[in-house]
């Protein structure tokens, strides 16, 4: 359940075209309106290093070990502050679009006093694969995602520095995409 009290129910469908399975995953809220769509393109041969898919929807923020690890497996009772207080969704959920930036209104959290109620835009870019990944590929993707995630200040978006950082972000994504045979898969749980 999201912090705003909306239940999300996963739904999956899949089709085969010329031997290639296409899987789709939709998310519905209690009102029956689509809240997110995940499309998956996977080659027929399992274990290939060229699996590429695009996810669009609501996911855990793909930054850091504690963000992606199951809460039941954490060595400490709570996740770090950057996940519990800085997350504008207050629950580890966010939205990102590959490869373009997405805009998400910041909800703020006046109860904790740790975040202001200023509107902000969050951009995330990520390329994913379901195959095993080297550590440095995980690091590169995490840094890229974090750089995008840090662009949260509404005032900063109007500055040339913000534009430079966006370009840097995109460049990092494409460099990582070309240099790594595979990139991290988002964990769930």
């Amino acid at each position, binding site marked *: 359940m999201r912090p705003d009290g909306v239940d999300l129910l996963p739904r999956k469908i899949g089709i085969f075209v010329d031997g290639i399975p296409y899987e789709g995953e939709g998310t519905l809220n209690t009102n029956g309106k689509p809240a997110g769509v995940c499309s998956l393109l996977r080659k027929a041969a399992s274990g290939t290093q060229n699996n590429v898919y695009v996810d669009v929807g609501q996911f855990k923020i793909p930054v850091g070990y504690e963000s992606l690890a199951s809460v*039941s497996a954490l*060595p400490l009772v709570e996740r770090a502050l950057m996940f519990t207080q800085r997350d504008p969704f207050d629950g580890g959920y966010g939205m990102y679009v590959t490869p373009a930036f997405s805009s998400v209104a910041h909800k703020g959290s006046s109860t904790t006093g740790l975040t202001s109620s200023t509107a902000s835009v969050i951009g995330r870019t990520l390329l994913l694969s379901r195959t095993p990944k080297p550590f440095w590929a995980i690091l590169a993707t995490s840094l890229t995602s974090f750089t995008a995630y840090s662009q949260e*200040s509404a005032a900063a978006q109007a500055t040339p520095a913000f534009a430079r950082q966006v370009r840097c972000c995109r460049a990092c994504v494409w460099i990582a995409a070309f240099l790594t045979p595979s990139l991290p898969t988002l964990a769930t749980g």
Partner: protein
Amino acid sequence: MPAYGSLGYRFTPRLEGAFRYDFLNVDRDATGDTTVRDLIFGLNYYIKGNNAKVQANLIRRNGAKDLSGTVANPATDIHNDRTELRIQGQVAF
């Protein structure tokens, strides 16, 4: 700018010590900005892995004042310094 670092060590297969330094500055250049630092010492006893365990955390939190001004402002400054002891039992099935 947030940052954290964690360190854990298993003294025995069932007993684990953990430590985390946690830092958060929301860095919005706005009234109400604050900085929080947590020092967390943890002790975990695994009865059956993560399916049955007991965790104890000793947390020392230091919260700084509003960073947007150089003068203390009681209206916006946040002082949440505190020490907490959290004990959690977990059973997953």
